[in-house]
């Protein structure tokens, strides 16, 4: 049973930030597409801004690892 809760915790630690990241990136991507239509020179900035929310899922991944490793 403990293994089940460990696995579930680790999965949630990744899944919820991943959903949040996806939602954030969808909003940024839509705004970026509109901005690029008017100013194509913003391409590099836009790619970086889309990458910023990925911190959430990466930290979630780290937490998941810590849960799994800490739980043995």
């Amino acid at each position: 049973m403990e293994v089940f809760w460990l696995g579930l915790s680790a999965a949630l630690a990744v899944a919820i930030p991943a959903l949040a990241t996806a939602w954030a990136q969808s909003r940024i991507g839509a705004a970026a597409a509109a901005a690029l239509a008017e100013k194509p020179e913003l391409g590099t900035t836009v790619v970086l801004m889309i990458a910023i929310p990925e911190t959430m899922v990466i930290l979630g991944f780290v937490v998941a690892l810590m849960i799994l490793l800490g739980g043995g």
Partner: protein
Amino acid sequence: MIAEMVRLRLMGPRERIGDVLDVLQDVGVFHPAHVRSTRVDALAGGAGRDRRARQLQRLLADLDFVLERLPGENDHDTGRDEEPAPRVEVARLADWAKLARRTRRELTRLAAERAELAEERGVLERYRAYQEGFSRLLPREPDPDRIRILPLVLEAGRSQDRLRDGLDALLGEDYELRTEPLEGGEVAAVLLMPAGRSARVDELLGEAGVRELPAPPGLETRSLEEAVPAIYERLVVLDERERKLESRRQALADARTGELTTARAAVRDRLAELAALGRVATTHRAFVLEGWVPEEFEAGLDRRLRKSFGGLIVVEHVARETWDEEAEETPVVLHNPRLLRPFEAITRMLPLPQYGSIDPTPFVAVFFPAFFGLILGDVGYGFALALLALVLHVRSRDGTLLRSVSEIAGACAAASIVFGFLYGEAFGDLGRRLVGLRPLVFDREEALVPFLALAVAIGFVHIVLGLVLGMIAAVRHRQTREAAGRGISALMVVLVAVALLTAVKILPGGFFTPAVIALLIAFPLLIVAEGLLAPLELLSTLGNVLSYARIMALGTASVMMAVVANRMVGATGSVLVGVVFALLFHTVNFALGLFGPTVHGLRLHYVEFFGKFYSPGGASYRPLRHWEPATDEPGEPMSPPDAPAA
């Protein structure tokens, strides 16, 4: 690094300003600036200059129009190794304007004729497809007196059946309907029926919505048997006319491209001179021009002006104290050693650093490939990237962005190979399986916590370095409080790291108490230096350190995908299918391995690292020089040119 600039003031007789601008343009290092003196009357040129500039802009628009449309390579205008474009004399300007307008009219006429021919060709091609379908259905020996032949176009589906039912009712068995499918889903049909029964059949066809085969324009009176050969003949005529148009266009290009190209370069040079003239201030007898020159080229420029004008033109330094505070106006020239120069492309993706601040290029040159290698960390992928970099290098020209990208890719490939050997990875675990490649530091598949610790430690070093650079930049600008704040922040980050390492027993326990005491002392000092929001900034900085955990996350994902790709070989029943799947997976992983480390490496630099010291807002260095194609990009700063000729 950012090249040292000097601000010069040139003064001389007013009537010599044109010659001075010519010489400055030949030398190509002087960046004109606004004159600050209040003792001059007006800017040179005035309304006349504006009028000339408008005329030249119109001429340039015509030249650009015709050169874009003439066949052949027109983008290699007068380049660095060729003679500069001739000075624009008024008579030559008028000749060029006439030539450009005449050429534009002829090209417009040729384009209109080509468009007409293309439209006619499109129509004929459409009919040809129809007509060929029908010609196969025609009877061999038609008898127009007895039999009427109706070519029809039917929709696919049940329209044929409905038509046959209608014809059966009307004509009984006294007709023949031959059909053949056409491209696009329609059906070609030829209705053969007695000549005298056509009126009622026309009614039936009208009610059923069936249309007759349309005839192309000009061939309406031709019979079906004559139409197809006529279409082919017409297409041959069109081909010939198009060839003639093309050869006329080529003849225009051969005759005029050289002159028009020279004209364009000369007009652009003249426009640059007129723009510089707008910065010149004058008195009744004299002119004053101020501007920036990289310090290393100052002596050469001075010699050249003396050689051209004797002592007539006075060159003096503007005291640094008068412009040192205006860092936003001073143009910035990034000037780094050859090995680091490609990485200027990464710095230039952001606004230029302010003059007097720190050029991050040398640090990017060290850390960006390192991060890339840490994440990709695979000998096989590294060699694949090296091959890609070589191809880009061969296909690019010196001084272009693509050449810089190829050199950065080469550095990243080298780092990936080095870390690949340290991790013992070549296409995942394939190296281990085939040649017994073993990790020299740790195995990324298993040592997740050590890899995470390494990533965070690298982040800690990078962030502290950024804070130290921020402190140095603040000291340079004599911003004592900001320098103190950055220094204390760096110290507190170090103390937090010491305390944490002591807590997990990596450092001896004796460090813990002094670290905590030092933190408690530094905390109020930080608030005094940076304000009440400083603790939030510090927390944000510590969060920035954790952000480097992405190096571990992306690197682990990369190696796991490579391992999965290798396991595909044995997963399916067939080795061949497994190998194909494995190659596909490795290709996808390689593509992700190029994109992910690049984007995240850039993000770590731009957001976490640059945020600690980078001061954007530097002005582009745009010296008065002869126009060159590679430098005609807005906002693109230029590296210092070759030293001016003595």
